[in-house]
């Protein structure tokens, strides 16, 4: 074995174990399941609650299913007998993907509606050792005047005990963040 090959072999012997034990970003299994929030836990009526108001919706829930690199997320917005849903499946191993959802329900008070054939471009990745799922979303909102590109940064953070999911949203069109505390159902 020549000198170069000997060095390479030595490096491989020392580096390979290190590489194999480096942490890989993957989900915490506690992410999967149904997460809920109700109007009683929001600022709609209780100023002491920590979540951003959910009105006009009375209940929100998020169903998350993790299967390897695939994450299915269904957000349900409920008001009485009326339910609006947004469903997507994202792959955290690729830079981004285009998904088609049912609509944009995050703020039904304002005259803004999901355009571009209800498509969203979503980049999804796990962070913080699998305790945070980050979605970077690009979409088009239609208003009375025009179609406007809007960026959404949505982070879903799992608490240490796995019982609380904090969802933080920054929307490029909105001056204030939306923060909600969901409980495991």
């Amino acid at each position: 074995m020549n000198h170069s090959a000997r060095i390479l072999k030595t490096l491989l012997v020392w580096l390979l174990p290190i590489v194999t034990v480096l942490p890989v970003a993957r989900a915490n299994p506690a992410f999967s399941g149904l997460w809920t929030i109700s109007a009683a836990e929001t600022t709609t009526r209780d100023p002491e609650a920590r979540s951003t108001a959910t009105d006009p919706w009375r209940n929100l829930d998020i169903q998350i299913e993790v299967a390897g690199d695939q994450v299915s997320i269904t957000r349900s917005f409920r008001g009485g007998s009326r339910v609006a849903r947004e469903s997507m499946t994202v792959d955290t191993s690729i830079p981004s993907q285009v998904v088609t959802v049912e609509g944009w329900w995050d703020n039904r008070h304002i005259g803004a509606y999901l355009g571009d054939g209800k498509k969203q471009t979503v980049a999804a990745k796990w962070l913080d050792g699998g305790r945070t799922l980050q979605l970077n979303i690009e979409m088009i909102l239609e208003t009375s005047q025009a179609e406007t590109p809007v960026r959404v940064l949505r982070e879903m953070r799992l608490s240490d005990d796995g019982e609380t999911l904090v969802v933080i949203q920054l929307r490029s069109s909105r001056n204030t963040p939306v923060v909600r505390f969901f409980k495991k159902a």
Partner: protein
Amino acid sequence: MNLTRKILKNALPGLALVALLSFSQRAVCAEKEAYVMQMSEDWTIEGDLPSHALLLSLQGLANLNGPQLYFEYMPSWPWKITRPLKEFYERRHDFTFTPLETPEEALALFANSAKGYVVWDKEVRTSLIVAFTVAGLEEVVVVSEELIPLVEEYGLEMVVDLRGDFTGMPDHEIYQIAMDRYWDRCSRDLVIWMGGAHGNRMEPGMADWGIYRKAFFTDLSNNPLHPEELALTNRIYTEQNPQSYVMGWHSYRKDTEGQQVSLISSYGLRMEGLNTLPNLSFNNQIPFTDDFKFTNNHNVEPDEVVVPEEKVYVSLVQTDSIGIGAWTKPGRGRIPYAWQVSMSWVDTAPASLQFFFEGAMPNDYFIGGLTGPSYMYPKPIPAEAFPILMTEAKRQMSILDLRVMETMDYSEGNRHVGNTELTREVADRYYENFPDVIGFINGYGSARTFDLRDDRPLISYDYYLSLYRPAEEAVADLEELIHLNRKRPYFMLIHVRESKSIEKTVGILEAVNEPIEIVPLDVFLKMAANNKTYRTRYQQPGDPIVGNPHPK
């Protein structure tokens, strides 16, 4: 044409109008002395509902002989105007109201207005609704068993006893019996939907009116999940006179507002709410004063051109009937506000409208709605019924000096889901049938219908200011809308939930971190006509449709 015939020809329209109003009011001269009682806050079956029902039936009968008995309601009642309106009658109509404290005092004065009593069964809530029908037809007061000795003290005898007639029956069987017994004798111009609160509670504020007009009372379902009840509902709507009234409100337990108003509109009938609307048998008989003419606070001439600047213009509208909202709350007049008027009150409660118009501040502007001569949804209205309905709406708008018509359509959704849009075909009808309005507005929450034709815009709401929306979120909402709508001028039409106070609304608008200008609605529409920075849009084939399902 000789002079006499010429005079008659010119006078006929006015005479017809006077005749119509007189007929609608059922009295020529208002009484100047009347009595007032205070209603309590307890409307439960085991609480004060029985005595309230007795008094409401007595009111409907007593007022057949002139406007004599008036009720004040507590601040928690949806209609906030009972005391201010009484004070208006004192001030402008020289009424003197003598307070009555107890049912005994009321019976002492008015028992002779009744021909007896009908007994309802406290074990069967629906029997009270049937009893109201009987009360009008037989001119009797309504009592539960424990009140029998009371009314007999004042010489009244039992005429109808409903106890035991409906035990264990579902509502569709009860109302079938009621229709078999009473329907043929009931008015075909008015039916009372005594819905709203359910279970142990009923709020029949409108009962006096239905008794006064000999209407059929019901709370039948408009929900397809209740086919037996719906069959009777459809029969009622079918057999009522064209363009007649359905007054009251749907039952919160059985169906939705959207289901009922959609169905009513499909028959070309007119909804006027709510079941809680009080004192109509009194208010109906108070005409306008001789010195009064409706004059709106117009800010522009009908053919005026107003050129907007490169700004964000905001205009605020409160609907949901003027009497249940922020009209009586502090702050009115601080900023321009448009108020949607219950136009049919020009016939049913004219002095109530005079009360609002005379109390208007310079910043108050009145508009017509919702959708037609009464509360209806545009899309279900049969095309053949549209012209005659809107002819009536135009008559009302002419009397009330209104130049803007508001539409609202919950037949295919609401502000949460579905759509609240107009089709181009429906908008065609409005533009054709309302040649004199300066513009139209649409929606309840935000909607997406916009157009501009012959200098008359059709603008939907871009924002719904909810009663419970925290102020900081509302501020962020408005800033977000401004961010999303970059062209200037931007015309932001805001619907303010009725009970949201103007002071809170002002506080929100002042906190918006972008320059905005609040303008009166007529100025807003004129500017929108001059510079169309909004895109024409009508309901599209891909717009979602959700048919207003009830929770159960």
